[in-house]
């Protein structure tokens, strides 16, 4: 690891002041620290936001669930409020990494990194969430802009994510047998604004909405409604784990399972 300077601000404002030049935010660090060990990242400064009280916690009411950016995957997975309001979101958080990673990794860190195989991007996009920062609010549809890239500006800090409570939603994933990352992860949701289907693990440009599946589910929110649908392969990645045609088929199958488990 290259040398770095560690900071532990006590507020979001103080954290924002520390973010200049090659400084990076350290949240759970479950991706950033491994990247630093590999010399894929070499921030001059690390601004640790994990203990800022304003970034932690879960608030739920009838219409929305709001999760502080520094809330861990374990806290989301085990939250009675989230299990009741959006069980698919608790399921998704409980399938990230392994127990030790879930105790430290955070929702804000996951979405700011926007790994193409991460689970949360599909959760936000599929549920039509809103990303709240120290400067503005960004709809999930505008937030994820490509592999490892987001709409965040320099110095902008995610403070929370707000999920509207859907009528029902389901999340399923096809795990790579060794790494357990999503080869395909699909969030399906019947929301006030219509049916949404988001796919992670497969897009050559990161997470995306599967409009073919959304159109079919809008007519009938059933697994059988997806039986004859073909997914276009032009936006899917091909790698040693599976080619685009394999992923296209898997997306349909996993989406069917997600519809089946939706509640």
């Amino acid at each position, binding site marked *: 690891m290259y040398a770095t300077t560690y900071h532990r601000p006590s507020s979001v404002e103080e954290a924002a002041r520390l973010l200049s030049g090659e400084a990076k935010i350290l949240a759970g660090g479950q991706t950033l620290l491994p990247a630093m060990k590999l010399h894929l990242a070499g921030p001059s400064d690390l601004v640790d936001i994990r203990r800022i009280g304003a970034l932690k916690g879960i608030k739920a009411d009838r219409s929305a669930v709001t999760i502080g950016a520094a809330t861990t995957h374990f806290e989301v997975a085990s939250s009675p409020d989230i299990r009741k309001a959006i069980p698919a979101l608790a399921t998704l958080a409980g399938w990230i990494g392994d127990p*030790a990673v879930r105790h430290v990794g955070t929702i804000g860190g996951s979405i700011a990194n926007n790994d193409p195989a991460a689970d949360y991007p599909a959760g936000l996009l599929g549920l039509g969430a809103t990303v709240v920062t120290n400067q503005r609010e960004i709809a999930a549809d505008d937030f994820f802009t490509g592999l490892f890239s987001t709409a965040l500006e320099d110095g902008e800090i995610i403070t929370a994510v707000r999920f509207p409570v859907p009528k029902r939603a389901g999340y399923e994933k096809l795990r790579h047998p060794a790494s357990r990352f999503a080869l395909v992860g699909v969030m399906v949701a019947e929301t006030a604004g219509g049916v949404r289907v988001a796919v992670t693990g497969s897009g050559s440009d990161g997470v995306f909405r599967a409009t073919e599946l959304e159109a079919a589910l809008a007519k009938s929110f059933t697994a059988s409604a997806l039986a004859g649908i073909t997914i276009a392969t032009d936006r899917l990645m091909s790698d040693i784990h599976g080619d685009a045609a394999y992923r296209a088929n898997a997306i349909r199958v996993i989406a069917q399972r997600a519809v089946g488990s939706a509640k």
Partner: protein
Amino acid sequence: MAEVKLTVNGKRVTRHVPDETLLVEFLREELRLTGTHVGCDTSQCGACTVHVDGMAVKSCTMLAASASGSEVTTIEGLANGGLHPMQKAFNDNHGLQCGFCTPGMIMTAVDMVRRYKASGERLDEEAIRHELEGNICRCTGYHNIVKSIQQAAGEM
């Protein structure tokens, strides 16, 4: 340099270390608590698992500076007089072969039993195998490790 203040196995320690020092390096090299192992150093194998404020974490994927202020328990701090029930169970069931992964296995196992007891969920064999997702044993298999955890779960 970062000032790191921890309570490790009940004892308060303060050290000044480079800011990028990992918690596992701090434990092994500053405190000479070498029971916590470095296996893969890529957060996959779980040999470095310790408890930070009561929760299992991979100490190769946390900065010592970031842990500062926390209570840390390592494998050395688990026994209280006699062996911890989980340590005894691993002994009784031969839940190890070379033993390299064992400290991490045991710290993960203690964490999982505590969590399941707190939530009231049933920790059956399938759940144990799922919970061991982040701990890798390359010697033999997981049968005796699972048996050990089942035994200790009944005693903790």
